[in-house]
């Protein structure tokens, strides 16, 4: 069978269980695709030998009748996850050469279920970025192009390598992480599905920390069904993460009925922004029509503190980052600068961090340091945390009023060209996350579903936001949207 790499998780699982293919065949097909896709720069550490070893073990398991859903399925892992014996750099020079002695809980759960890791995926440095242009590995490139224009486009960020790899069929699915939109924005830019679960659903243990009160892992997949399958394996309580929820994980796939009759879908008026491209407004209107046609009730809602979400995020996330990234000091792991005669430990810290961190990481660490410094802590950090409480309350109020899910655009535009934003001030890049960041601040589950293309043929996505811990219901609503939208566009293979 050819083109096995183009399968989704559900289809491949069914073929494996029917004995019509093997994990080794699936894995070899992906490894071939990866080797031919150097131009995308998606996989930055390849693990073909480990992959084939795991594939053989999975085939043995499947033959013995012990086949969890993910068993034998080849996937990519974002470089932010620590993987035992495999370089894990978080896209940063400061972790050059770091090879963890342990495995993150999420990647361990995926491995225990029999999935096959093909390698590590490109990302913005420490997950700080919206275009995968801050990576020490260089840019990840989207497989999508504007018609016949060969300008390279961003796959989004920070999970840009994951988005590029899944969209280009280099793997069946991939892990991502989302602190302000880093799963949902790249998914929307590349025509795939990405879900950030409720804060606390997935263990953060072994995932390099950016902003601990916002970070969540999630799957990036070719369909909503695949997202349900993979999310179930990634979720679950972990004693090693004190914020991990002690809740049972439902069978998400079994909840995909496509029936959303009578569901109340909130349409927040604050997400209509002046100057938003007409195509995004149209896409959103089409999504509303699809929900209505499927039997849902549309309800106009207000989330009054929406406009303050990005500024609150750009206090809270850098503050937490400045604290989390203090560990990169040249002592325990990663890079240490060469020191001059007479340099003491302070020079070692300062030179190591100056050499090891890229510009965006330095910028955010220093902003975080500033907002936490004496005299500004109340004015910036505590105020931002108060505003965050109000943003969360906005959502609680609409859910209390009976709203089941909220429909919004996923991004304010289609993918832009690599380098096109480099002359802009950093705030303009931050606007990419305007529709997604509220969800992290409130700790809610959010999913991006591809529903259309723009006039240049580039994919566009809509976001659905769900009630806390109700990923199953959210996935089902997303499944109905996906079925109605019938998005089938794929990028041509130019690479």
């Amino acid at each position, binding site marked *: 069978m050819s083109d096995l790499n183009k399968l989704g998780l559900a289809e491949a699982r069914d073929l494996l269980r029917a004995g019509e293919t093997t994990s080794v065949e699936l894995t070899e097909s992906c490894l071939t695709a990866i080797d031919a896709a150097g131009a995308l720069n998606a996989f930055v550490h390849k693990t073909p030998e480990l992959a084939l070893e795991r594939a053989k073990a999975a085939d043995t398991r499947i033959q013995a009748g012990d086949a969890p859903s993910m068993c034998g399925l080849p996937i990519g892992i974002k470089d932010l996850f620590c993987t035992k014996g495999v370089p894990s750099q978080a896209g940063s020079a400061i972790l050059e*050469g770091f090879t963890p*002695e*342990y495995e993150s809980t999420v990647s361990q759960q995926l491995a225990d279920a029999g999935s096959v890791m093909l390698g590590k995926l490109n990302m913005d440095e420490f997950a700080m970025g919206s275009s995968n242009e801050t990576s020490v590995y260089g840019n990840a490139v989207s497989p999508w192009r504007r018609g016949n224009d060969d300008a390279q486009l961003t796959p989004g960020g920070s999970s840009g390598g994951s988005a590029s790899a899944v969209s280009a069929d280099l793997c069946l699915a991939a892990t991502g992480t989302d602190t302000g939109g880093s799963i949902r924005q790249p998914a929307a830019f590349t025509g795939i599905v990405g879900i950030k679960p409720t*804060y606390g659903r997935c263990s953060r243990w072994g995932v390099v920390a950016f902003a601990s*009160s916002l970070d969540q892992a999630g799957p990036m997949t070719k369909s909503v069904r695949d997202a349900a399958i993979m999310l179930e394996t990634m979720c679950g309580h972990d004693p090693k993460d*004190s914020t991990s*929820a002690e809740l049972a994980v439902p069978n998400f796939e079994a909840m995909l009925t496509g029936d959303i009759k009578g569901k109340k879908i909130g349409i927040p008026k604050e997400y209509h*922004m*002046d*100057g938003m*491209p007409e*195509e995004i407004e149209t896409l959103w209107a089409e999504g509303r029509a699809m929900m209505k046609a499927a039997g849902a009730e549309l309800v106009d809602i207000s989330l009054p*503190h929406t*406009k*303050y979400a*990005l500024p609150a995020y*750009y206090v809270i996330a850098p503050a937490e980052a400045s604290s989390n990234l203090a560990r990169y000091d*040249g*002592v*325990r*792991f990663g*890079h240490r600068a060469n020191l001059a005669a007479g*340099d003491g*430990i302070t*020079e*070692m810290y*300062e030179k190591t961090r*100056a050499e090891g961190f890229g510009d965006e990481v*330095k*910028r955010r*660490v*220093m*902003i975080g*340091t*500033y907002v936490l410094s004496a005299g500004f802590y109340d004015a*910036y950090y*505590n*105020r*931002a*945390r*108060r*505003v965050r*409480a*109000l943003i*969360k309350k906005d959502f609680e109020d609409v859910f209390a009023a009976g709203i089941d899910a909220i429909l919004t655009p996923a991004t*304010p*535009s289609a993918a832009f*060209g690599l380098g*096109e934003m480099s002359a*802009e*001030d*950093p*705030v*303009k890049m931050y*606007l990419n996350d*305007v529709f997604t960041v509220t969800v992290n*601040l*409130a*700790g809610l589950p959010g999913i991006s579903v591809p529903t259309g293309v723009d006039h240049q043929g580039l994919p566009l996505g809509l976001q659905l936001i769900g009630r*806390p811990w109700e990923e199953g219901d959210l996935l089902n609503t997303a499944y109905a949207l996906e079925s109605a939208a019938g998005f089938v566009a794929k990028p041509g293979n130019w690479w």
Partner: protein
Amino acid sequence: MDLHRFAQSAKRWFQVATGVLLMSIDKDTAARVAKLARIKVEEDALPALAQEFNTILGFIEQLNEVDVDGVEPMTSVTPMRLKRREDVVTDGSQQDKVLANAPDAREGFFAVPKVVE
């Protein structure tokens, strides 16, 4: 480009007040922040850094419009009490693994430049 036009108007929407800041960071403050963050910044890079800080802080400044009277700062999105456990050793004896990634480890220790004269 769409995003560029969008950014222009979004900038108005957000009332980004670049250039008319309530709080303005100068070169010396930028140097102090870099020092606190233990990141070496060359003298000639400080003015540009201060300008970037001002742009970002100008963006953040709009939080002052929000009435936060009586609102508690959020600590955790899901109210939870941290777990307790018995105060006993659960892990350890992994010195080799702990030191395996150190840039400089000697005789079972992390080695650093001389700290005490």
